[in-house]
Structures are given as C-alpha cells and as structure tokens.
C-alpha cells in the first residue's frame, strides 16, 4: 500500500514538473519561431503559482459542485495515468493485465471533465467549446484506438503495457514494420488533437469563442486544468514510446540517452506541427480524422494481421 502511494506521488509530481518545463519549451520555441525572445524558464511555474493565489469565482449561472469538481477529477485522472505509465516503464514485469485499456480510459478523463466543467459553467461560449470538444473526442478516439491495436496485435495480443515493452525488447520495436510506422503517424496526429494543440485547438479558440471551455474558470480551478494539460503533454509522448518505440532500455547507460532522444523527437514534433499550421474548422477536423486517418489506421491493422498470419514481421 505504501509503495503504491509513493509511486503515485513521485510519478504525479515528476510528470507535473516535466510537463510544465515542456510547456515552457513549447512557448519558448514558438517565440523563437516568431522572432521574439519569449518567457523566462520559470514562467509556467509562476503562472500556476499565481493562479493558486487568486480568487476562485463561481458564476451565478453555474452549477457550483460540478463546476468546481471537474478540474480536480481531471488532475487526478492525469496523476493516475502518470503513475501507471511510469511504473510500466520502470518495472515492465509488474504490470497488470489490461492496463493499456485503463490508460485509454483515464486519458479521456481530462477531456470529459473539461466538457463537464464547461457545461456546468452555464456560459454560451463554454457550451460551444464543450460541443466542439465532444466532436473532437469522437473524431480522434477511433483512429487512436485502432493505431494502438496495431501494436497490441504485433506484440502477441498483449493488453499489458509491460508485456508490450517486453515483446518489443525481444522482437524489435513495433515502429520498424510498415504497419507500425503507419500506426505511429496516425497516433502522433491524434496526440496533437488530444493535447488540444493547434491545428486542433478549436475547443478553446481564444479569438472566436474567448478560450471556449475555460472561459468561466479563474484562480485555482484554472490552475488545475492547466496542470492537467501540462501533465498530458508529458504523458502522451511517453505512451507512444511505450507502445510503439520499445520503452526504456535499462540494460546499459545509452538506454537512457536513446529514451531521452525519442522523447525529445516526439515533443519537438508537437511544437513543430503547432507552429506551422492554422486552426482547422470542426467539420474539417472530423473529415480529416474519419475519412483521412481512420482508413490509414485500418490499413495498418490489416497489414499487421496479414503479417502475423503469414509470418512476415516486417509487414
């Protein structure tokens, strides 16, 4: 019991710090792309600290309990995900059956709570934001799960994160096959949508619906949402590394270096996509995910199944 609590606290705070640093990197790189200087390194920590010290306003039209509870549950969901993922990466042999499915569910929690909080705030802008968030969730969740299923199929139908890591350690990364490469491309684009980054930031488009889902949030509640978002930014690349890219190799010192390299590549991709694309409309987003990415994910899955049936590991 004690070790569970310790794992949770360590993983959650570690991920929070990592996520806030990554958010700063994101802002700094964005500033440099726009030929600006950008914020100092401690900026994101100061933002959270400041919001913690401000007033927490609840609008008169809001349904108070849901409004205040939503950010806490979102933060807790991200914390538990962090604990499961870091535990799986540190000690792959101790994972429990089906933790991949638990992680998929827990990763939906922040988006779900954003919708709940926005709907509870009783603000029309937030309502539009919530409806967009819901459509976004519907559009990226299907290709995301299909892409993850490719990795599951290739590693011998193991729904354990630890099992997926161990199978890749024995038989090479999922990424190195055709279906795996297709699947990780789909998963990277879904990650962008899950993080709510441009071009899929339409739920909180600040110039058309005034920060959308977060419009009525202030002070500590807003800080909790920001922290949960920052943790997601740290967790999604981690999930992709575990599932597609072989996790962490602890056998030698260069294992840690390559892990950091993989992590850096995925985070850099998020910032790169965000800085080179305009925001899409909701109908364009839906079309992109359903008619663009879902067929690719299905194709990857079919290729993976054919590869398993015919014994062709490169497929």
């Amino acid at each position, binding site marked *: 019991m004690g070790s569970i609590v310790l794992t949770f606290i360590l993983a959650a705070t570690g991920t929070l710090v990592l996520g806030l640093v990554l958010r700063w990197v994101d*802002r700094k790189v964005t*500033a440099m792309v*726009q*030929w*600006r*200087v*950008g*914020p*100092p390194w*401690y*900026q994101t920590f*100061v*933002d959270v*600290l*400041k919001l913690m*010290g*401000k*007033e*927490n*306003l609840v609008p008169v039209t809001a349904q108070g309990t849901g409004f205040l509870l939503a950010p806490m549950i979102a933060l807790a969901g991200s914390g538990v995900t962090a604990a499961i993922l870091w535990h799986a990466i540190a000690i792959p042999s101790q994972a429990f059956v089906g933790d991949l499915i638990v992680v998929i569910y827990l990763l939906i929690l922040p988006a779900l709570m954003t919708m709940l909080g926005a709907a509870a705030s009783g603000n029309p802008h937030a309502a539009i934001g919530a409806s967009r968030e819901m459509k976004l969730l519907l559009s990226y969740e299907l290709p995301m799960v299909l892409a993850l299923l490719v990795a599951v199929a290739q590693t011998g139908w193991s729904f354990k994160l630890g099992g997926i890591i161990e199978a890749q350690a024995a038989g090479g990364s999922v990424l190195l096959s055709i279906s795996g490469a297709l699947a990780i491309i789909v998963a990277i684009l879904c990650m962008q949508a899950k993080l709510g980054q441009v071009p899929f930031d339409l739920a909180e488009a*600040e*110039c058309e619906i*005034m*920060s959308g889902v*977060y*419009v*009525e*949030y*202030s*002070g500590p509640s*807003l800080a909790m949402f920001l922290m949960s978002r920052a943790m997601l930014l740290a967790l999604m690349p981690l999930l992709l590394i575990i599932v597609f890219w072989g996790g962490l190799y602890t056998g030698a010192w260069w294992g840690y270096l390559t892990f950091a390299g993989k992590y850096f590549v995925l985070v850099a991709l998020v910032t790169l996509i965000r800085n080179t694309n305009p925001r899409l409309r909701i109908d364009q987003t839906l079309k992109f995910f359903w008619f663009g990415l879902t067929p690719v994910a299905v194709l990857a899955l079919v290729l993976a199944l054919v590869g398993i049936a015919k014994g062709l590991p490169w497929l």
Partner: protein
Amino acid sequence: MALKMWALRKSLWVYHVNAGACNNCDIEVLELLTPRYDIERFGMILVGSPRHADVLAVTGVCTRQAMPRLQEVYMQTAKPCVVLAIGACANAQGIFTEAYHMGLPVDEAIKAVDPNAIIIYVPGCPPKPESMIDAAVKGMELLKTL
C-alpha cells in the same frame, strides 16, 4: 504572501477592454505582442476572458453604452487586479469630454463599483508601447506595496 505577490508580478495576464476607443489605442496595444516589444518576456500574455486576467487594459472614452459593461467586466475579473487606463480618452475622456454620449470617465466608472481599485493612467493619443510597458512595470511596483 510575499511569494504570492512575486508570482503575480511575474505573470500578469492582460485582458483588453475597448470602451469606445477610436481603434488607434487598440492597435498600439496589439503592438506589444510583436517581436519589437514582445511583452511575453515579462510573462505577460493577452488572454481571452476577464476571468483569467490580472490586468484590464481599458481603452476609449467609456460611453454611456459601454459604462455598465465595463463595470460588469471589472467585477468579473478575479481579484487582485490592476486597471490600465490607456490613452487620453480613457484618462479623462480627451476631446470628447463634453459630448452628449459620455458616461463617467474610466477611473470614476470603476471606482463607482470598487473604491479600492488600482488604476494606472497611461497618457498619450495614442500612448507609445514603451509607455504602456512602463505603466505595467509601475503597476508591478505598486503591487509590491500591497
């Protein structure tokens, strides 16, 4: 308490309220985001909702139509917050002071709902971005004494 105020000074989020400006002050406010002035260096960003804001950048004369809305926006802002009255219009209604459609000047309109509001005046028509940055820095100094 000191830590709280330090964090507030290092991360001022600005919400821009147009209370009947001629649009020239607004353009100068947007200039603050450009590479030349880049106020994100000081941790300031423009936000989309008064609930997130620490600074209300008010431009314009505060017409009769705009006044109740300005007061509402001020009350919606999470405290502690600072009001920047930007431009001659926002300071004392400028050349429009005797016109028929004036409400109260910005400072009086805000003091009417909160007598203890912190208001910083940025004169000019329109003020230079440098003077707005100066005003924001002075606002930070003022917050130190709180």
